[in-house]
């Protein structure tokens, strides 16, 4: 009987599959396209992909508005400079904020490592440290906002130049700050559950890694905001 099975034709053994064909065969295996990837992790990756497009649209819009503007764009190095002990240092606060946030990615990575080793106490402590660094970041951002607002920067206008400077600044850093704040809450909740032993009973610590993915993403987005908004 020449009835042909699944894809309507027969083909050679999978051992011959190479290159693209091999990738396709792997991804189209039964049950799971990505073996050993738990559901929550797959879903987080997809969410981050979608969120990438959100921030991509924000940053593209910012660049478009900045480039098409006829009014001079304020110099970020000057606007975000602080005078500390008589010294005028450009971008000093942003540099510290960036350092804090990137350090928090380090503590997060260590937390994931200890989660794999099922070291409850250290995992929880490192996650709380990450959350604390994140909260510090948000606090410094609040300081930065307060300073700019007191200098007269508003979403609709500012004394330094193009009105869109304030608009994009508050919108993009605000949206990123919300992401960090949500992450701080998320990490704190997971850390408390780790400390309480919830995942010990379930037998897996995947949620720590999933929370870590989100945190690294928020961190990565900041790098782009830093580069495109503050350094340009």
């Amino acid at each position, binding site marked *: 009987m020449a009835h042909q099975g699944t894809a309507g034709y027969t083909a050679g053994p999978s051992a011959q599959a190479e290159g693209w064909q091999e990738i396709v065969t792997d991804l189209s*295996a039964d049950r799971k396209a990505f073996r050993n990837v738990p559901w929550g992790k797959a879903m987080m990756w997809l969410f981050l992909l979608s969120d990438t497009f959100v921030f991509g649209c924000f940053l593209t819009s910012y660049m478009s508005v900045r480039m098409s503007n006829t009014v001079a764009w304020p110099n970020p190095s000057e606007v975000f400079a602080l005078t500390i002990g008589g010294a005028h240092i450009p971008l000093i606060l942003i540099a510290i904020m960036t350092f804090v946030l990137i350090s928090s990615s380090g503590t997060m990575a260590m937390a994931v490592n200890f989660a794999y080793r099922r070291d409850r106490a250290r995992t929880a402590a490192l996650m709380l440290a990450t959350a604390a660094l994140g909260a510090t970041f948000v606090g410094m951002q609040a300081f930065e906002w307060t300073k700019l607002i007191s200098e007269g920067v508003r979403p609709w206008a500012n004394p330094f130049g193009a*009105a869109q400077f304030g608009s994009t600044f508050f919108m993009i850093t605000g949206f990123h700050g919300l992401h960090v704040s949500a992450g701080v809450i998320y990490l704190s909740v997971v850390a408390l559950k780790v400390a309480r032993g919830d995942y010990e009973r379930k037998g897996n610590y995947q949620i720590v890694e999933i929370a870590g993915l989100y945190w690294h993403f928020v961190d990565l987005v900041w790098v782009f905001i830093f580069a495109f908004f503050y350094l340009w």
Partner: protein
Amino acid sequence: MAQTAIPTGTYDDTDHDEDLGDGHHEPRSFITKYIWSQDHKVIAIQYSITAMAVGLIALVLSWLMRMQIGFPGSLPFIDPERYLQFVTMHGMIMVVYLLTALFLGGFGNYLIPLMIGARDMVFPYVNMLSYWVYLLAVLVLVASFFVPGGPTGAGWTLYPPQAILPGTAGRDWGIILMLVSLIIFVVAFTMGGLNYVTTILQARTRGMTMMRLPLTVWGIFVATILGLLAFPALFVSGLMMLLDRVLLTSFFMPTITSLGERLSYGGGSPLLFQHLFWFFGHPEVYIVALPGFGIVSDLISTHARKNIFGYRMMVWALLAIGVLSFVVWAHHMYVSGMNPYFGFFFATTTLIIAVPTALKVYNWVLTLWQADIHFTVPMLFSLAFILTFVSGGMSGLFLGNVVVDVPLSDTYFVVAHFHMVMGVAPVLVIFGAIYHWFPKVTGRMLNDALGKFHFWVTFLGTYAIFFPMHYLGFVGIPRRYHDFEGIAFIPDSARELNAFITVAALVVGAAQLVFLFNMAWSGFRGRPAGSNPWNATTLEWQTPETPPGHGNWGPRQPVVYRWAYDYSVPDAEQDFLPQNYPRPAGDGLNPEAPPEQGGLLR
């Protein structure tokens, strides 16, 4: 049916190593079963009913618009502002709140777990939230009918600066509610969409490879990915316009003098909004079309008792359309004043995307070629879809070319084109799909005579409505005009044609009420359907109960041995082999081949 006699493969999943998500959520009371339900089937029905209810509003709005165009002044309360509000709300409701929600929230939710042999979505709680947030978006949208000034009249594209300037209807409240509602909708869609994609990728049953998925699932899968990547642009543009409106930022607002007064706006770019909007808007066309493509492939194959022609190419075509749909958006903007070189690029990509689309049409036709076509109601709607989609697609070739598009822009030719290709065509698929799956959802058949009546009036009626609009467009009748009094170049024939179109629209709209009656009546009094009335191969027809119970499969999940299209297999004892029908020993296939090519499962 001989259905019960078929030995089918199952496996016990009690040792399921999978992370069960928030898995076990057996409903305990009426409220957890039907209201705050986490069952994908109940959520699907909630989505569908909400979408159809809001669709009825859009239907009534279209009647009102047609009355004004066909018989100007016959309904005196339709002034120019109201007319534009009707245009806006009709368009937005149909595209976003009806079609997107019904295809993905409705059919996606119902069919994905059943067709891939899963017990539910991977995160049922998030799935439930998705529906309730969607309902909130709908309520905010509908609330705009009741606020001072009414809903926005900016047109469904909401182009700034006019959308938020004084003088546009609904500028005070309507536009704010519209933007807030869209933002909420994106949140709701994201929660659902993440679930659909993760479920399809990671929660298929044993033996269900990606290349054995029914094309319905493929269509929904690709459309959902498009949504996850395209809706962010709507989210961002909506948020920015909201800031422009509420905080007086100038993202999209140039320097404007309105009624002799210089507004505080300045320095923004209206074109930026158009780019963002259409970066969402064009994939949105395919978010609506691709599930339709998938569903129609399965309907044709099932009701013509023949395997789908070129399954693999159908899958690759879906993926190709998905990728290309992100690089054609500016063909909506040929007259916007963007750089003319863009027109060259986007016209080229637009014509390229016609290739995989045409490939799909050829494959549907070749599936029908020499097939045992059963003229059931779902088949009639599928055939009507192919015809409508081809005629709508053909006019797209005109509009995709810059030089032809420029004179046709903003005429009824455009209205005719997009209504045929992304209005009527997907709606015909939805009807066919409802006639096809209603027996599984309720356990009862829809009435056939009423169904055929509904089909013929809808199919012929929509042609009566939209075909003449091509002519109106060639004559140069502009769209979004409240009335055409005193416009010298418009011939009397156009007025008569408009009256004719209005009568047809009223009749077609009324036929939809017959359909709603059919659903309500048959849901309680229809002929019992049995578990597999169409003798279909896909897994949702092989459930132990109809309608499927909570968890879908009873104690044992199905095992899949073959693709979804084993119809009329030579020498088989019946004309269809369900996907979980075990493969005979020594069937001539190479056991070393990959599973999707008939090899053994490893």
